[in-house]
């Protein structure tokens, strides 16, 4: 029984992590990335207000 609980918990953690990485962090996306040639990030923050 304890084994089952641990398995379920561990399985859930892995499942939700992979799902999150795929959907929100786009870790598995193939294709062009919006990165610089040097690979450095340049984030520009804004509020949608003038």
């Amino acid at each position, binding site marked *: *029984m304890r084994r089952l*609980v641990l398995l379920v*918990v561990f399985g*859930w*953690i892995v499942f*939700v*992590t992979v*799902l*999150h990485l795929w*959907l*929100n962090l786009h870790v598995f996306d193939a294709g062009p990335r919006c990165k610089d040639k040097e690979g450095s990030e340049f984030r520009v923050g804004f509020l*949608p207000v003038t």
Partner: protein
Amino acid sequence: MSTPDALAVPPSSAGRQSGGRGPGDAAPSRPLSLSYGAVLLPLVVGAVFLLIWDLAVRLSGSTLFPKPFDVALGIIELVEQGLLFKYVVASLFRVTWGFTLAVLVGVPFGLLLGWFRRVQEAFNPMIQALRPISPIAWIPLAILWFGVSDAAPVFLIFLASVFPIAVSTMAAVQGVQMVHLRAAQNFGLTQFQLFRWVIVPATLPQIVTGLRIALGIAWLVVVAAEMIAVNSGLGYLIIDARNAGKRYDLVVAGMTLIGVIGWLLDLLMRQVERFPAVRWAYGARHE
């Protein structure tokens, strides 16, 4: 197994209908009215609530506040935009990690606090001083330390959950009956055996209750954290809907979803509470 008063914990809600049946018991015939009650009563309450909500909005003549049907349409719209699933996953991801870390830190720490008086004397004042600081108040620091990333909400959830878990674990250990400890000593158990075979089973129900409460807090905090610190998740959905103009139907849709998932999480924890190793300590009221 009789339940010593010191180990009795607040019983879980009336929603549990099959309490009291162990694996070997013959299934008692359950009156039909019980299962109707489990489903019908909440439905009736829910329906009345929706009705009052709808009437109140119509009577007030408000153009901003959505009616239940508007909210349902809003939920459908969110599903169609494809955002809903992504955001639910994001929120669940953060709760999972924050809560897991809190359990991994809080339970052992709570056991130590409960068992060793010196540890409690040393750390308890600090814990009691940090505990009342709302996780929301930590948001500015979380952003400064972790930026706009998943780490910030995970940290906030960890903070919010670790204290209730540690404190209820500590209380559980301190509540173990002397009679059990003396009996164990008479049997000549080592410290480790004592821990594994007496303390842990005795404290498990109260620890699980603490976990249930902490999970509720964690879910509450993730939404608040997402309103400020990140760019995805159900809390962000609400803020985004509100910034998109007058989409208060989407705001309430988001709130509804948060409520539903919170309810499901609670149901999940109640299932855990039904395990024999946990259930024995709860009152016999619901058998």
